[in-house]
């Protein structure tokens, strides 16, 4: 049995003046980690902020943990954790002071010292917020989102601009949250982040969800994968094609560099290598390129995701 949706958005429309930020968006997120992926300006933040109760939909309905984020915010707020894209901390406050304060607003908060340790904020506990690095500020915002032991956490671009090490620390925490039964909705424009963390990915462009599914489903859907190998130039492509399944194509791109396009699975790999063996070819470089979410996004929108 699939669990109840944690977030249910139906036909959401949100305009700012004449600009339509969200244009009839439908999204269902269930327990686990859902990544909302899209380029800047796609409507990710507006969608998430509507779920957090910051914005009133112009039309459409939004339910978070079964509640209306605006009308029932009093019941909802203790149950969610919010990480804003930036800010949220008194400029005169110290990192540990702010986190302890947010903890005090909750009935059963996490152990603040352990959380500070966990996120590597120990060294900046006494440092004023303004003097923290961007990465430290982001980790503090993440800590503030989880300290109240929420059921559902919204993370708006949690790793934007982080160095690889800090990004990995954030990813580890998201995995731990998921493992302990916390649902996570995160926005990102990093493909890799969605692929690494998400059970479910919703791709947003121009205020609508244009595809949704697990990273595997999205990568599989319609897309073909590529196998490349190098050998001596001038191999008999016709003979190779006869050995391959009917829907595959093969070509020698440059002398000695071969490419097979089709449904790349272990069987195909075995077929190619045994054909090479029969023809006395040593494929000295062989690689399989899986279709990535980046490719999917490009195919769906004709746009590069990274801006």
């Amino acid at each position: 049995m699939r669990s109840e949706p944690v977030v249910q958005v139906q036909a959401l429309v949100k305009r700012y003046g004449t600009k339509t930020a969200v244009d009839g968006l439908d999204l269902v997120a269930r327990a686990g980690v859902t990544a909302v992926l899209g380029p800047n300006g796609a409507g990710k933040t507006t969608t998430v902020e509507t779920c957090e109760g910051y914005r009133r939909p112009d039309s459409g309905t939004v339910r978070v943990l079964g509640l209306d984020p605006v009308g029932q915010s009093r019941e909802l707020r203790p149950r969610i954790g919010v990480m804003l894209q930036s800010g949220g901390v008194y400029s005169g406050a110290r990192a540990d002071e702010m986190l302890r304060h947010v903890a005090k607003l909750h009935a059963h908060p996490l152990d603040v010292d352990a959380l500070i340790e966990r996120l590597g904020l120990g060294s900046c506990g006494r440092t004023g917020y303004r003097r923290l690095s961007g990465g430290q500020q982001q980790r503090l915002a993440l800590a503030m989102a989880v300290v109240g032991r929420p059921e559902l956490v919204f993370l708006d671009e949690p790793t934007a601009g982080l160095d690889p090490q800090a990004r990995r620390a954030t990813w580890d925490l998201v995995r731990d949250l998921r493992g302990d039964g916390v649902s996570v909705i995160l926005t990102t424009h990093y493909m890799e982040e969605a692929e690494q963390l998400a059970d479910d990915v919703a791709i947003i462009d121009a205020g609508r969800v244009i595809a949704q599914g697990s990273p595997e489903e999205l990568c599989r859907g319609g897309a073909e994968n590529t196998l490349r190998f190098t050998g001596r130039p001038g191999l008999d492509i016709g003979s190779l094609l006869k050995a391959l399944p009917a829907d595959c194509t093969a070509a020698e791109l440059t002398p000695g560099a071969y490419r097979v396009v089709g449904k790349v699975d272990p069987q195909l790999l075995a077929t190619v290598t045994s054909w090479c063996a029969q023809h006395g070819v040593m494929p000295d470089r062989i690689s399989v390129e899986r279709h990535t979410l980046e490719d999917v996004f490009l195919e769906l929108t004709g746009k590069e995701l990274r801006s």
Partner: protein
Amino acid sequence: MTTATGPATGTYAPKPGAAPLPRMITAQAVLETRMLLRNGEQLLLTAVIPTLLLVLFSSVDIVDTGAGKSVDFLTPGILALAVMSTAFTGQAIATGFERRYGVLKRLASSPLPRWGLMTAKTASVLVTEVLQVILLTAIALALGWSPHGNPLAVLLLLVLGTAAFSGLGLLMAGTLKAEATLAAANLVFLLLLMGGGVIVPLDKFPAGARSVLELLPVSALSDGLRAVLRHGAGLPWGDCGILAVWAVVGLAAAGKFFRWE
């Protein structure tokens, strides 16, 4: 509750809940007060400037304050200034920057309700004012101040003044940009310091200007405090009325126009 992995037991296992309201509001008030007392510019406004003005103008005969000891004229005015510096100038600037830095936004998604946040802000303003009154009263007494009147009347005036200034300060903080609030709040502080009967008696101004200046909240507060503390008058109804009108108008406008982001 359903989860992806069955019953949750780990460190982060959900256990949501708001803290009891009194605890949330107390925590918020303590934090706000700490932020205020830590801020150098705020301390300059709330403690250093009123103290310096009180000492300087009581000891050196710069402004003719009429008959009697000048400290008896000045102390009520300086107390009014202190209320204005905390409830209006300080609160406007702090809240303006909290809005700018997303603090108000972040707190809006916390379990603390908005009215709880406003209650905490008011408590923090009142705590600061108590500290100011203690400090300034001690200095004034050392300078030979002899207060009169009913302390309850003084208290009522201070509370009404706080309400009036808070409404105006929050109106400014919730509608202008943080930088504009910073500039405007300081400018207003300076202008009202000069023209609000704080250190310069209003009868030094031409009659036309005076009748307008008398309607300012800081003038009503200094005048009311002076009537009680200097002359031992009963409750100054006129001044209380002016302050009450400012309080109602200011708080209503702030409630209507305040933008949280």
